[in-house]
């Protein structure tokens, strides 16, 4: 079984929240090496060569994202996105609580690489425990001389600010996150300009996911070739996959990208006794379902995209043959209706009416035509919003209505009584 321990190394065996334990395992060595031995372009180059793609959802190459920052002499900011709230995803929650120093070291390396002297971490409001753990880690790192001015005898200095959100999924979208960090409503901004050009306080900004940044120390330690050699060429490296749903041992499993879905299922303890898996949602609430015939596909960015879905945040939900897909669809549609920021009419109204319609169907008051309406409304509200939230409804809903249409039909009347 290809479970590996890179980011998850030591979790469960040692209290890595303690800076001494973390340092005894080589912690902060790469941070020191970066500042004292490596030039900034060299780090960008290493990360580009490693092929690391963003772990937050979009899968954008990290090195390339960093290269978009203009050389305009303005201050630059690094923002670590820890607003994890994609349904089914719980990897950043674990990283924040179990290996806060690894997250911090990754943030510091990323900040140095882009030439930033002020890094921010935006922690989801619900992660109160994670916030407290990270604050303690930051204090320890400051006391140990890893955060502050004139680090390791050089001229380089960095400040880190920890910012708590207050309950809004949309703040995981990078421009909404920046608005929230500026003390505004978490409404996504019109793009362009992208954050790389005009981000936090109007200055060049990089927003990276927790897991993306936490991967940096290992890439510096082992070299870009080590990372690039794992998995498919355009989608290399190790990834923490959050497996949940109808499996015996749900949990976070770190695997090489390209691991077949069937193997992921086995790692997570397989289906419950006497049941079989009929559907898989491979990339969080916003991704389209795959089905039993897709179980042999490799789990990586490109293979998922080629099959009409996405790897997203790495949240895999397995559904067995007991699943009521009407309820499953309602859980996700209700989520997107609840989390719409309300700026764009199609998302605000569409999500709401889809929720009302699904509730009506489940309550026994639905009509045959409601099912076609689910599909057409979810399609019509796609691609015409400022951010991808509204677009996230269609993939799952349309894929399960198509596949499990009989379940939806069984709830509704075929004609209006006279």
């Amino acid at each position: 079984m290809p479970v590996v321990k890179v980011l998850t190394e030591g979790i469960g065996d040692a209290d890595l929240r303690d800076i001494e334990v973390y340092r005894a395992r080589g912690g902060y060595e790469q941070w020191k090496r970066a500042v004292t031995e490596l030039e900034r372009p060299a780090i960008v180059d290493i990360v580009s060569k490693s092929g690391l793609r963003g772990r937050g959802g979009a899968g954008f190459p990290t090195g390339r994202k960093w290269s978009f920052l203009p050389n305009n002499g303005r201050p630059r900011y690094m923002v670590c996105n820890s607003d994890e709230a994609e349904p089914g995803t719980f990897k950043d929650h674990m990283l924040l609580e179990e290996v806060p120093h690894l997250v911090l070291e990754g943030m510091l390396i990323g900040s140095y690489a882009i030439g930033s002297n002020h890094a921010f971490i935006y922690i989801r409001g619900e992660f109160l425990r994670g916030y407290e753990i990270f604050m303690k880690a930051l204090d320890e790192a400051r006391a140990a001389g890893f955060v502050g001015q004139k680090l390791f005898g050089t001229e380089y200095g960095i400040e880190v600010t920890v910012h708590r959100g207050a309950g809004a999924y949309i703040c995981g979208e990078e421009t909404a996150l920046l608005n929230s960090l500026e003390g505004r409503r978490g409404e996504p901004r019109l793009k362009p300009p992208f954050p790389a050009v005009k981000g936090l306080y109007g200055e060049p900004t990089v927003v990276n996911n927790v897991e993306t940044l936490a991967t940096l120390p290992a890439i510096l330690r082992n070299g870009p070739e080590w990372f690039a050699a794992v998995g498919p060429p355009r989608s290399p490296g190790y990834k923490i996959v959050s497996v949940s749903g109808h499996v015996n041992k749900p949990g976070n499993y770190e695997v090489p990208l390209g691991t077949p879905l069937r193997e992921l299922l086995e790692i997570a303890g397989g289906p419950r006794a006497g049941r079989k898996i009929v559907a898989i949602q491979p990339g969080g609430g916003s991704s389209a379902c795959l089905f039993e015939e897709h179980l042999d596909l490799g789990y990586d960015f490109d293979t998922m995209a080629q099959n009409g879905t996405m790897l997203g945040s790495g949240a895999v939900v397995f559904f067995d043959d007991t699943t009521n897909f009407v309820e499953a669809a309602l859980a996700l549609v209700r989520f997107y209706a609840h989390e719409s920021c309300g700026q764009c009419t199609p998302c605000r109204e569409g999500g709401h009416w889809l929720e009302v319609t699904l509730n009506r169907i489940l309550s026994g008051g639905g009509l045959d035509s409601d099912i076609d309406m689910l599909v057409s409304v979810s399609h019509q509200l796609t691609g015409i919003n400022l951010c991808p939230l509204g677009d996230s409804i269609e993939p799952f809903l349309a894929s399960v209505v198509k596949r499990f249409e009989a379940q939806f039909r069984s709830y509704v009347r075929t004609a209006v009584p006279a």
Partner: protein
Amino acid sequence: MTTAQRDFATVVRAVEPEARRLIASYPEGNARSALLPILHAFQNVEGWVSPEAMAQTGEWVGEPLSVVESTASFYTLFHRRPVGRYMLHPCRNLSCVMNGAGEIMTHFREQLGVGHLQTTGDGLFSYEEAECLAACDRAPCMQVNLEFVYDLTKEKVDAMLQAMRDGTYEVAPLPQNAKPGPDWQISQDVRGKSPGARGVSDPNDPGGMGDATGVSMIERLGREPRPFEERPSRERLVADGSARIAAPATNSEH
């Protein structure tokens, strides 16, 4: 537990050093960034974000009350009305629903006698069904005053509620310096707003079927997982009275 006498000057004195520290942690000239963290600080002391707290926050960060209130109203974790001592947040999202969250939510509603976004009459419990809390490996899960509780069962819920009533629960109760009302939402003038913006469906009667507490629907959906074919058909639900079919929907409704 009695409601403490509210003395806002003391509250301000307790929050001010933290607020100054927070403002200084952002680059100069960006005090507004500290708006959310300062509201958190007030809520930690008072249990809610009062109008006075928002006005004071505005003074510190250099923004008018309207801006602070507009911002605070965007975020679900800020309560602009007093809430109960224990804020109960069971998760209602996908992985939890697939693992029995429906049954847990039904149980909460029955045991507490309140629905979504409501507070019990004794001011002890506030109840809100939350979206994905990022603990899907331990479904069904919930948060109590933002502390995680995993692998929920009805028995665990009963023991938890009893411990809270006895004052022996492991998670500290929220501060409470004003008596909470039956809910903590602020009613707004919705005339002229679109249906999505005013939220036509009642969260406690989601299907619009006259199911006043939402219990019967959630309970029906939340039974032990079993193959879809074995679930009661719509006809049977109607026959045994669990669902009341309203007047047929017409297109003009949409």
